[in-house]
């Protein structure tokens, strides 16, 4: 099949936002991902936002069971999955009801008409059928009897029973491929690879995909509505499409390789961090040991054991799990062992909203330990950035002999975007050198002798003759590492641990201020708000108003020039998906009268929300 439209010349758009919505069993995530990959292959820039229920299978047809996948494709470098969809694919009444409010006025709705029968309408809480009661008058509606057309398409493929309607998501995908001039080949190749062992299922999916495409091509309903988005002009380079959990996992493998140490990953399954465990467990040929622990505490404790044994140890979790790891994290701090603690933040507190984005664990990462226990914090700001953030966390941990908190969140973890790949053989060198010789006056090894520049203690691993030593959670005497209750020693060691972390400020890049126009207003953010803040800043600038932007990778310590930067602006805005956490740190540290923009409503910021706030402040 040709990838060009045969009888309709498409109208070219610079961007389009499409949301696939259906029952969680309808395969909307899969349809969205395939559409994304076809667009990436076509050369569009893109960003995605999957949203799915926390329950594995909420009752079919109900509002809680709706799963959706939003993708924005564009011919320029876009930053977010977009605010308001231009197109909504609604596979059933519940999907329509829970997503319609987000659709832009005059937007397009693609409807699976056969799902709009009495029972499904009732389950979604519709008293009248929206297809006939006039409530969709302000939209362009494309109606397709997807179920009967799917049945017809697959009748010669050999699938039967429940498998027949399984492929109806491919009908929706095929229709969208026609509407937006996407090539079908990448999807067909994917289907063939995916269902290689079940040729009848592959044939059914391909037949339905083509049926959807042909439905768009031939029906009066959609004629002349074909549109396309041209390839984006991204910076030259080699690209892949990546989600944040994958790139974070790869960054851990890369960072460990840079240190020359084997990677150990201890984890307990938890949404949305589990994919890191899944991914790492596939790469044992890199020498990666994954340990699925009995609980969160065992996951970090085993990682501490592996770190003591000379491995680059990482434990990964999400909010509730970080709370459980708190005591052991203090042990890692006291024993001054390198350890990465990945926290893929989600809506909290308690079980909260496990599948929704939030940045509400920053203060917990900062202060969530007993005693005086500052630790470095590094945050990933986009799916592709998680790779670099993981490498940076490992650099700090190994160089300074300290645990490091690496913050991701649900948006970073499950969203995807094009990633300009690093050059081959460009991995930095963080080679770790274990202690090999005694360092004490009597030929003994003293574990708390420190490097004069980094204050890091030496890492002596079991199996090294002559360096036998004991470490532990009790306060240790400086230098010798013997247990010490000496009051002056505790003051010294507490100060030293804090100083060791604070001193890292001199070893991280100063904040880069994005301020081409000499603005008086600064927007400062951290983590997954990067794309949306960038987009908002761009819109404000396009409207002729200068505004500056700083995005923090390091949350503790802050970069050395941050205070100076903050004080050089009249107004400082801090947008965060929490009730004001970074802003507290900034106000406390630098006494700046920053203004917060805060949101905890299970969704990322919309560009317009930040844009409006910036305009208000200017």
């Amino acid at each position, binding site marked *: 099949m040709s990838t060009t439209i045969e009888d309709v010349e498409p109208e070219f758009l610079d961007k389009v936002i499409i949301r696939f919505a259906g029952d969680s069993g309808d395969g909307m995530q899969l349809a969205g991902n395939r559409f994304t990959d076809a667009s990436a292959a076509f050369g569009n820039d893109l960003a995605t936002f999957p949203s799915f229920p926390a329950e594995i299978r909420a009752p079919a047809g109900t509002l809680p069971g709706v799963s959706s996948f939003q993708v924005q494709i564009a011919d320029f470098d876009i930053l977010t999955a977009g605010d308001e969809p231009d197109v909504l694919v609604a596979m059933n009444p519940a999907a329509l009801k829970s997503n319609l409010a987000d659709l832009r006025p005059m937007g397009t709705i693609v409807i699976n008409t056969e799902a709009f029968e009495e029972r499904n309408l009732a389950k979604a809480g519709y008293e009248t059928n929206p297809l006939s009661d006039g409530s969709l008058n302000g939209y362009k509606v494309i109606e397709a009897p997807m179920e009967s057309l799917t049945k017809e398409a697959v009748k010669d493929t050999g699938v039967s029973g429940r498998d027949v309607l399984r492929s109806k998501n491919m009908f929706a995908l095929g229709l969208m491929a026609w509407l937006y001039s996407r090539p079908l080949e990448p999807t067909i190749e994917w289907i063939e690879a995916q269902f290689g062992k079940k040729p009848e299922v592959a044939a059914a999916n391909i037949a339905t995909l083509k049926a959807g495409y042909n439905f768009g091509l031939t029906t009066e309903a959609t004629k002349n509505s074909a549109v396309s988005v041209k390839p984006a002009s991204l910076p030259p380079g080699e690209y892949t499409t990546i989600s944040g959990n994958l790139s974070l996992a790869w960054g851990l493998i890369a960072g460990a390789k840079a240190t020359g140490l084997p990677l150990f990953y201890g984890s307990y399954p938890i949404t949305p961090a589990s994919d890191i465990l899944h991914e790492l467990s596939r790469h044992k040929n890199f020498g990666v*040991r994954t340990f699925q622990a*009995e609980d969160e505490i065992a996951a970090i404790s085993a990682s501490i054991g592996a770190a003591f044994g000379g491995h680059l140890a990482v434990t990964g979790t999400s909010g509730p799990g970080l709370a459980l790891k708190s005591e052991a994290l203090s042990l890692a701090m006291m024993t001054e062992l390198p350890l990465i603690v990945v926290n893929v933040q989600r809506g909290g507190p308690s079980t909260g909203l496990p599948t929704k984005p939030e940045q509400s664990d920053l203060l917990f990462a900062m202060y969530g330990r007993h005693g005086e226990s500052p630790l470095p914090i590094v945050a990933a700001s986009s799916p592709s950035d998680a790779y670099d953030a993981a490498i940076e966390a490992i650099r700090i941990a190994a160089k300074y002999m300290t645990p490091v908190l690496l913050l991701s969140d649900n948006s970073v973890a499950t969203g995807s975007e094009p990633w300009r790949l690093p050059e081959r053989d460009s991995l930095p060198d963080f080679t770790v050198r274990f202690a090999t010789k005694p360092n004490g006056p009597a030929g003994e090894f003293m574990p708390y002798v420190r490097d004069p520049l980094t204050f890091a203690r030496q890492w002596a691993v*079991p199996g090294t003759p002559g360096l036998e030593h004991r470490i*532990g959670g009790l306060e240790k005497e400086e230098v010798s590492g*013997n*247990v010490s209750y000496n009051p002056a020693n505790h003051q010294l060691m507490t100060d030293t641990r804090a100083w060791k972390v604070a001193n890292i400020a001199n070893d991280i890049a100063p904040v880069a201020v994005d301020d081409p126009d000499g603005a008086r207003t600064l927007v400062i953010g951290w983590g997954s708000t990067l794309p949306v803040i960038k987009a908002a800043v761009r819109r404000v600038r396009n409207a002729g108003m200068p505004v500056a932007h700083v995005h923090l990778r390091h949350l503790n310590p802050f970069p050395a020039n941050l205070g100076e930067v903050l004080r050089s602006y009249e107004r400082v805005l801090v947008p965060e998906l929490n009730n004001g956490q970074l802003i507290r740190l900034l106000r406390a540290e630098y006494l700046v009268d920053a203004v917060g923009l805060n949101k905890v409503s299970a969704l990322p910021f919309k560009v317009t929300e930040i844009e409006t706030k910036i305009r208000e402040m200017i």
Partner: protein
Amino acid sequence: MTTIEYTRGDFQSDQEVRWCPGCGDYTILASVQKFMAASGIVKENAVFISGIGCAARFPYYMSTYGMHSIHGRAPAVATGLATARPDLSVWVVGGDGDMMSIGGNHLIHALRRNVNIKILMFNNQIYGLTKGQYSPTSEVGKRTKSSPMGSIDYPFNPMSLALGAEATFAARTLDMDTKHTVEILEAAYAHKGSAFVEIYQNCNVFNDKAFIALTGKEDRDSNRIYLEHGKPIRFGQDMEKAVIFHNGEATIVDAASVDETAILVHDQTNMTMAFALSRLSHSPTGPTPLGILRSDDSRPTYDDGVSAQLARAKATKGDGNIDDLIRSLGTWTVK
């Protein structure tokens, strides 16, 4: 490989031992040091990991590598270390509160995984470091600071618990019986996989004479049931008692009252027998089995399994290349 000759002193650290005078821990420390010197373990390959409690001070007194970790977590720390470094000999030391209360979860999972770690649980049936509360092995009715009207907590039977957690090695010994302790440590070390050793340890400050039935001159010979693989189970001052199977349970009888062939012959590879023997006593106030209840080398160890998967992945996929990995989902080029 050359064997290094060690003495007990080679395993003593320079730290002053600070248990209460008369504590059973001193004897256990001496037994462990004696065992280590003769074990053939290269000193730098031995690691002692502990949690929190009186017993958990143990690593500071050994001149090996060691970590005094946090309450209950020593089996998990040791699991990570042994998995990362299968070349080491990893030992876990803790008390009954550390292992069976706050750390119960880690203990059972370490045992079922069969990680190659050796767990020594000093059971004194009391919380010592926190000065005398009842523990998960204290007997019902025990009056302590936190149970002035007597404890209503039913205690664990540590041997039954370990066996229920699929321990491939479970043994019990007594602090004061140095010879037997060393024998059990040797067997635990020789065992492939995780080993659980319960050591009855007298806390002369908060729970003195808890094990008097096994240690007192009057009763000890009639109450110690020493188990030996392949031998009929007989005990008593004149070996006048025996253990038989009766109504599906291990039962103590007068040896003279049964036919010689009815006496149970100990088979440490038999899980059902091990569990039955573990039920002979609950609190050690009467006849109590000592020695190896179970030792079964047939189950693969966790750390071997991990190493084997790594080797297989490397053999089939080759050494990982990060530049290829990040391109594995397909790439496109923008010019």
